[in-house]
């Protein structure tokens, strides 16, 4: 079973891995065009796309680890090249999430005040450019795993089937690729490996991260309960704008959980990448992310004090709560439903 999951997930990685780079280029183009045209609606659309890219980058990253596992018994692929790609991808992932987070703040402020704070949209542009640069680097390094011929530094492909005749101290353009094949066995130089060592060996890192994960979960869930119950008819006398005020607290809890969750994943990737409930959790996170964006920007219920929300909004509220409960269920049941623990 795990191999079937891994094969499907490898396909998913090869399919989705274009989203962070191509998506960011499109979103940045849209955002710049919107600023030139001074078009508010277009600016918001671009910010929404940047948020969605941040959401989709999560399965891109985690499916990459499954793809890696699936390639272990293929000696023609360089383990070093994969590790270098993984480190680059983690950096790109982190910055993409941060760009998505700042884009979300801009959207939240725009919904409240009609415009984002001065400097926030330029900050999104800078962050997205930086994220794009890191992701493009990760993508290039990822491409080199199967296509060593595109490497700038051929001498680094020592683990490839036919070692290049160009041996020697050729200057490396890619940090970390100077290692020879023998050195690739010691993986301590890689950031992902260092995080993993720390998470596994430190007596308190994992329990502390778990504790923060549970505190963050409670905070997020409390906020989402209030916001969604308001749409479903509780607190009807309250304007939605006033409940909307709470969303950043939900984001705070979610941010803590994304960081600690990634520490678990990078810490013990094998435990998650072969586990079906983990992928269910990611799927429900995608749904929950889409719902969260809707809650942040939707217009209909905004001024509807005392009025009933539309059926669409109610369906969104129900699906939001169900998705978060499913995320929680899959997460808590991971050790029991999966086969990897």
């Amino acid at each position: 079973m795990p191999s079937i999951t891994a094969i499907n997930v490898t396909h998913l990685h090869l399919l989705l891995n274009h989203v962070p780079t191509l998506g960011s280029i499109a979103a940045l183009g849209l955002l710049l065009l919107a600023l030139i045209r001074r078009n508010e609606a277009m600016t918001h659309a671009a910010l929404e796309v940047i948020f969605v890219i941040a959401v989709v980058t999560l399965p891109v990253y985690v499916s990459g680890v499954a793809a890696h596992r699936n390639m272990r018994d293929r000696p023609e692929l360089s383990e070093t090249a994969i590790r270098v790609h993984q480190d680059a991808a983690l950096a790109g992932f982190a910055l993409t999430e941060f760009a998505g987070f700042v884009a979300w703040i801009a959207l939240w402020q725009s919904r409240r005040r009609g415009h984002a704070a001065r400097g926030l949209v330029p900050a999104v542009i800078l962050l997205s450019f930086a994220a794009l640069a890191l992701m493009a680097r990760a993508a290039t390094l990822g491409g080199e795993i199967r296509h060593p011929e595109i490497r700038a530094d051929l001498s680094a492909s020592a683990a490839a089937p036919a070692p290049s005749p160009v041996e020697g101290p050729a200057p490396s353009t890619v940090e970390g690729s100077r290692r020879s094949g023998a050195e690739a066995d010691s993986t301590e130089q890689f950031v992902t490996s260092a995080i993993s060592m720390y998470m596994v060996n430190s007596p308190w890192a994992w329990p502390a991260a778990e504790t923060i994960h549970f505190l963050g979960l409670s905070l997020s869930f409390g906020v989402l309960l209030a916001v969604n119950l308001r749409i479903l008819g509780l607190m009807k006398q309250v304007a939605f704008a006033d409940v909307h005020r709470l969303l950043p607290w939900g984001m705070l809890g979610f941010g803590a959980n994304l960081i600690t969750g990634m520490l678990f994943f990078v810490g013990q990737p094998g435990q998650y990448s072969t586990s079906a409930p983990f992928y269910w959790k990611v799927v429900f996170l995608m749904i929950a992310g889409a719902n969260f964006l809707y809650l942040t920007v939707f217009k209909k219920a905004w001024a509807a004090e005392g009025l009933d929300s539309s059926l669409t909004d109610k369906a969104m509220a129900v699906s939001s709560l169900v998705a978060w409960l499913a995320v929680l269920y899959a997460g808590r049941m991971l050790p029991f439903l999966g086969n990897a623990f």
Partner: protein
Amino acid sequence: MLAWLESSSLAVWLRESPSLWALPTVLTLHTMGMAVLVGASWLLDLRLLGISRNVPLSAFRWVFPALKVGLIVNVATGFLLFLRTATTWGTSIPFLIKMCLVVASVATLMPIRSYVFHSEPEPEVSSNVRLLAIASILAWTGAVTAGRLLAYLMP
């Protein structure tokens, strides 16, 4: 008494059954109950501390039925989790600390509840109530932390 609880057939089932409906489901329900209980509590505490102050306090009355549901679920599932290893947990310091923190958290809810139901509309929240809200946030944080760490401190 603890030994009797631990040897009850329910405790044995929870300890030894490979069924997903035994320990896994009880643990998951305990976590969901926690999300409702702690989340809704914190929400109210944040309002008392001035977040979303435009929302009248009376609009938050729905929180208490939600808290009641969360509390009932977690007392029930918590009791089942305790049954499993009653002799070791019942006498362990970390577990007793967690119980004290849970009791303290629930205790802060009582005066907060009467404040929410009986205060005049729209007064500034008094500093006493603010202190209560801070105590509530901290007590729940402690209770969740202690509960989560039990998994690592206790066999």
